[in-house]
């Protein structure tokens, strides 16, 4: 081996060694750019949602200083709900319900004070708009935190995890952002499928009476011949979900229902059709699980069968203005509930709960 060949070999080894580092650096740089682009999309979505919330609140707060309103909303979107400790899980649902209701009441009074000219149902929609801005803000801040940590430590693995999760997160962010326009105009969203089924039943059969035994939740006793049918839904047309467990407890204190039917939107898998209606057993309520727990407790205590009617849709459809396919599903859902009610013996009673956000759906 002569001197030139040895030098060339050495240079080749050094070049290969340097290239391996260079490739990793290039890969890190590529993923950083990708994550930054995604973060830019999420930041823009947060800004748009925040702007929409501020604009909408300002419509009803002519007497207040716009700067003051803007600052208060900036503060509101930074508030956090702190879940109770699970070190001793006994009674945790009751504690969670307490924390959530305190948060809900405080947010409602804050928004109502910022928008004195808004009607109660408009305040409900403003709360949802602020809530959307709050959730997008939380998502952005969390992802930005992971991004900055990953960048600080030049951690390829953290960046790769972020980059892999981003398309799914963006899909959810777009879904949440899609709700802004629907709440601004107060029109039903996909998640309003349950309350819309309840509203169609109320309109079709008429009511013997309609009461609001629990805040923002109505109970309507249908004028249904031979059976006592109680329909529970969020009050509407403001954007709220009501308190179904307390409303069901109120009905069960007065009658022993033969069945509790919950009608709700359900996420469909890829390949399934939107608006498809399926049956289920159990309580179809998402969210924190507090109300689901409450209804399960009541049903178990009184041995009441639990049926569910699910209307399938994607997450984007659930949070954006209702699509025609979901609307057709709602009509089919009404027919399915009617079939279930018709199969009950005469003289029996039943509770139908229209679960979901009741935006744009009056009683």
């Amino acid at each position, binding site marked *: 081996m002569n001197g030139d060949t040895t030098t060339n070999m050495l240079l080749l080894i050094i070049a290969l060694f340097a290239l391996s580092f260079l490739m990793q650096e290039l890969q890190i740089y590529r993923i950083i750019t990708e994550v930054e682009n995604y973060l830019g999309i999420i930041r823009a979505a947060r800004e748009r949602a925040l702007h929409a919330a501020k604009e909408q609140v300002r419509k009803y707060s002519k007497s207040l200083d716009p700067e003051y309103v803007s600052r208060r909303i900036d503060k509101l979107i930074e508030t956090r709900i702190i879940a109770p400790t699970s070190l001793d899980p006994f009674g945790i649902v009751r504690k969670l319900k307490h924390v959530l209701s305190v948060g809900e009441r405080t947010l409602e009074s804050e928004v109502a004070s910022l928008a004195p000219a808004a009607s109660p149902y408009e305040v409900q929609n403003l709360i949802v708009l602020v809530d959307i801005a709050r959730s997008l803000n939380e998502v952005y801040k969390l992802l930005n935190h992971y991004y900055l940590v990953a960048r600080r430590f030049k951690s390829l693995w953290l960046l790769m995890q972020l980059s892999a999760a981003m398309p799914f997160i963006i899909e959810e962010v777009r879904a949440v*952002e899609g709700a802004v*326009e*629907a709440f601004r105009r107060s*029109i039903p969203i996909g998640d309003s499928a349950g309350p819309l089924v309840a509203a169609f039943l109320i309109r079709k059969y008429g009511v013997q009476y309609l009461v609001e035994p629990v805040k923002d939740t109505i109970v309507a006793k249908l004028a249904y011949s031979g059976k006592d049918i109680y329909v529970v839904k969020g009050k509407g*047309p403001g954007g709220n979900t009501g308190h179904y467990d307390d409303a069901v407890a109120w009905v069960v204190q007065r009658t022993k229902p033969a069945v509790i039917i919950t009608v709700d939107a359900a996420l469909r898998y890829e390949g399934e059709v939107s608006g498809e209606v399926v049956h289920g057993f159990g309580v179809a309520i998402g969210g924190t699980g507090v109300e689901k727990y409450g209804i399960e407790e009541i049903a178990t205590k009184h041995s009441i069968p639990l049926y569910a009617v699910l209307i399938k849709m994607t997450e984007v459809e659930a949070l954006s*203005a209702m*699509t025609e396919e*979901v609307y057709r599903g709602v009509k089919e859902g009404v027919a399915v509930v009617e079939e279930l009610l018709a199969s009950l013996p005469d003289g029996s009673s039943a509770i139908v709960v229209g679960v979901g956000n009741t935006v*744009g759906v009056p009683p």
Partner: protein
Amino acid sequence: MNAGRAPHPKRWIPTYIVLLASLLILAAALALQYLRTGSDSYLVSAAFVAVIAVYTAWSFARLITLKVTPRSLMTLLKCPSCGHEIVRRYREGDMLFSELDACPKCGSKMVAEGIFLKEEKH
């Protein structure tokens, strides 16, 4: 709903056409220069530009076959007297179960039975 809708991807079609035409002209010019001079560097450059042109053409083909179905917000009106139904574009202020337009058949007030996004048919 039009507000907040993502920009239509087919807005890039003119850009693609200009880019593809420029690349093809450049590749042809380089090939011509190779034939005139016989220099290999022109041949390599022409091949390189041709590869980029093929990739651009492939992306363009994907773009023009992309199917985007826009949706419009509609209001379904139903006449409580004669049962006549109409689906028309949503107007600001339309509210579910409120009485809106007059029925073209019997003249009664029609009720908004549904507000939903419907696929636009061309």
